[in-house]
């Protein structure tokens, strides 16, 4: 038994998107509530219909959200460990809970103030002076922090270098991901950065952690996102055209472990994003393969990770991701495979994952800003880098 086609996404919503710190005095809770109301309106449901929550990453309090939303009865709440890698897992967990009979209408939501209610900045994770141990594995930081390895981008730079070394992947190919993604953002009125860029712009952009330039990095932004999931059965009677969850998977290879904050991965998976087993399982459940995917929304916190995912999801052979993305390979209109048709984390907004889900739903409804013609099957992936990661396949 699997969750194939048991559930459907019936509402999506988000707030305005803001550059870091420009969301004013709105809290993450407020952004979450605003996004949720948009998603509920999209579905024709009300807060009183929600009976479950499915979260990921951090910053949630089910009790707080339940009272703030004024829901009638909370019957289920779950949270995935890890970071943005859990984003699509929330959809999987929601459908599983519906199948189990725990709940019927589940809210998956994430809001982020990357300037932070707390002042934390995810791009500088680990850069703050340390004052002592907190929790299991905290002493591991001694092995990184003292050597100036203090951020996710710096860790991904080491993985990117290995991909370049093994396969001859180039910085210009990383740039090609950024250029295609920005092209899509230029057509998306919600996107933070809409000015088109060229490979030359990418090459001339400031080096941050060589081999990664500024334009290889995702944005630091504020905003809220929400996705409403219910049973395929109930979805039929709702306002929006349902988008069905054909398959879902989460996890990754055990030895990938903490990934970017670990760097001890075996050589044969070091140049991976940690998605390969998830890719195999999500395809198997949905009964499709890479050739069936009309549009892919792939978590893009750093450009090399998109190239790695293209290889792991079988859109090209291992090592051929660099060539795959060249010459507009990811463009919605003329590319080999439309990828991140909303502008992704690189150019639209970076809220840790659900914006990719929202864009996939729009593509399957036929309402996207860069609409892929006759899109029927979409792949959505979540943050590669640490376990667990996750992915879903949606269809209309």
């Amino acid at each position, binding site marked *: 038994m699997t969750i194939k086609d048991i559930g459907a996404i019936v509402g999506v919503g988000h707030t305005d998107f803001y550059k870091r710190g420009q969301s004013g005095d709105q809290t993450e809770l407020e952004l979450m509530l605003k996004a949720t109301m948009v998603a509920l309106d999209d579905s024709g449901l009300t807060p009183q219909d929600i009976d479950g929550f499915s979260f990921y990453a951090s910053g949630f309090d089910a009790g707080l959200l339940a009272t703030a939303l004024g829901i009638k009865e909370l019957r289920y709440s779950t949270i995935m460990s890890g970071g943005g890698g859990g984003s699509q897992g929330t959809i999987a967990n929601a459908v599983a809970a519906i199948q189990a009979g725990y709940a019927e209408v589940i809210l998956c939501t994430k809001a982020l103030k990357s300037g932070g209610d707390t002042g934390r900045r995810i791009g500088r994770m680990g850069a703050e002076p340390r004052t002592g141990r907190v929790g299991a594995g905290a002493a591991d930081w001694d092995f990184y922090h003292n*050597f100036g390895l*203090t951020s996710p981008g710096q860790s991904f730079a080491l993985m990117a270098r290995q991909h370049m070394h093994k396969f001859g992947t180039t910085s210009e190919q990383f740039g090609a991901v950024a250029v295609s993604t920005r092209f899509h953002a230029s057509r998306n009125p919600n996107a933070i950065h809409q000015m088109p860029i060229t490979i030359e712009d990418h090459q001339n952009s400031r080096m941050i952690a060589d081999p990664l330039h500024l334009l290889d990095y995702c944005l630091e932004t504020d905003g809220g996102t929400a996705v409403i999931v219910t049973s395929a059965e109930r979805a039929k009677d709702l306002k929006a055209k349902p988008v069905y969850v054909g398959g879902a998977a989460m996890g990754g290879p055990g030895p990938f472990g903490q990934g970017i904050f670990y760097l001890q991965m*075996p050589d044969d998976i070091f140049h991976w994003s940690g998605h390969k087993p998830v890719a195999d399982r999500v395809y198997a459940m949905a009964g499709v393969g890479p050739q069936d995917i009309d549009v892919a929304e792939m978590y893009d916190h750093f450009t090399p990770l998109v190239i790695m995912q293209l290889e792991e999801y079988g859109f090209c052979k291992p090592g051929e991701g660099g060539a795959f993305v060249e010459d507009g390979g990811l463009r919605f209109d003329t590319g080999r495979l439309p990828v991140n048709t909303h502008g992704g984390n690189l150019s639209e907004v970076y809220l840790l994952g659900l914006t990719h889900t929202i864009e996939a739903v729009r593509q399957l409804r036929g309402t996207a800003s860069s609409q892929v013609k006759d899109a029927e099957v979409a792949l959505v992936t979540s943050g590669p880098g640490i376990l667990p990661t996750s992915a879903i396949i949606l269809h209309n």
Partner: protein
Amino acid sequence: MTISQEHYLPESVVAIFPDQYSREYWDRIARGELAFQRCAQCKTFRHPPGPMCPKCSSFEAEWHTVEGKGTIYSWEIVTLALNDALADYVPYNVVLVEFPDAPGVRLVTNCIDASKEQLSVGMPVEVIYQKYSKATLPRVRKA
């Protein structure tokens, strides 16, 4: 092994908070000895140090001293300091080093004497030790 007072990165960013698994590592580093934890039963290395062998599930551990000659597995040049204390130290490199006598271990460190043009995957390096007030750190130089 020589322990030098010269520093690649500043005193102010150096701090260690050893736990019961890593304390031995840092104690040996302070004496100018690079040793990695490995399973006492199946001899599989694990780094950073921890309570159990992921291969055979033994909780028995031992320390294995390595010669300190290795090769660079990956490298980068950090050009934007994320910590104010590092602002005057960019660009600096971060390297991942593998050791033939400790398979499976990668050490995150810095190469003190190689330029961007000189750094490459597979480049031979050797470990040196830099003493700070709060800890001694292993770094590498061209071999």
